[in-house]
């Protein structure tokens, strides 16, 4: 049952995303205020939701589970790492699609509003995690370090969030930009928007599972190589 579900997840996710694109680009009507630009609402918010909430929460929760002695398992370490890696991709996509939407809407490619700034910072924190992951170390040591890094970064995020919001709104002479890009939405548009969230979440989960399997196989292979090397050494020492 689990296997068939996992097998189905990929094709289903891709199909739903494709449906979202078709509806978003061709079937749904243009918005009264934003015109065709509203079509970006069928990908950007979903990407942001996945990157900022799903990926981030998954990384945080898995890291916590790994650090907690009773639930410690390398599974959580690998899941967290997978979530962060796919999360980085989605975060970058969020920033770029947001920027593309912002250009015709606000006239600028970038603005230092609270959400964009926090997202950019989150992207860098994710990248830092991945950099840490690449440092050669015993898998358990690495797992512990990465879990701690993820956790303390996660604790920092609310602090960053408030700092940036106050920075934007309290800064003398700040232009009050309406960072809420979502127009009033109803009917087919609303359903497509909902579809986009479901589709991209499933896509993310599928990618995480694939990445997780890669990680598991790679780690198993390292163990196998080590076992082979130890065996060879032992053979050398054995009497002829």
């Amino acid at each position, binding site marked *: 049952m689990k296997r068939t579900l996992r097998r189905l997840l990929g094709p289903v996710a891709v199909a739903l995303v494709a449906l979202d694109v078709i509806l*978003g*680009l061709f079937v749904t009507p243009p918005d009264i205020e934003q015109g065709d630009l509203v*079509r970006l609402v069928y990908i950007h918010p979903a990407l942001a939701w996945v990157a900022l909430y799903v990926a981030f929460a998954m990384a945080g929760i898995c890291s916590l589970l790994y650090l907690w002695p009773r639930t410690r398992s390398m599974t959580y370490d690998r899941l967290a790492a997978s979530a962060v890696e796919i999360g980085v991709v989605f975060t970058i996509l969020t920033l*770029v699609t947001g920027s593309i939407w912002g250009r015709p809407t606000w006239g600028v490619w970038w603005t230092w509003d609270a959400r964009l700034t926090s997202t950019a910072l989150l992207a860098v924190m994710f990248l830092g995690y991945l950099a840490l992951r690449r440092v050669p170390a015993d898998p358990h040591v690495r797992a512990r370090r990465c879990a701690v890094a993820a956790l303390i970064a996660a604790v920092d995020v609310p602090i960053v969030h408030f700092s940036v919001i106050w920075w934007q709104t309290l800064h003398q002479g700040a232009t009050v930009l309406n960072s809420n890009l979502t127009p009033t939405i109803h009917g087919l548009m609303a359903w497509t928007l909902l579809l986009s969230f479901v589709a991209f979440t499933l896509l993310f989960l599928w*990618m995480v599972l694939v990445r997780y399997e890669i990680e598991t*196989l790679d780690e198993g292979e390292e163990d196998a*190589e080590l076992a082979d090397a130890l065996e060879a050494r032992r053979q050398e020492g054995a009497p002829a």
Partner: protein
Amino acid sequence: MNYVIAGYTFTFVVLISYGASLAYRLRRARRRARGAK
């Protein structure tokens, strides 16, 4: 509309390339695991 096309294109070029790289890495990892056995 150009912006919309740019946004969609960028998104899916990235997602598809990344997906392809994942598929490649998975196949390679599976092959190596089978080989080691």
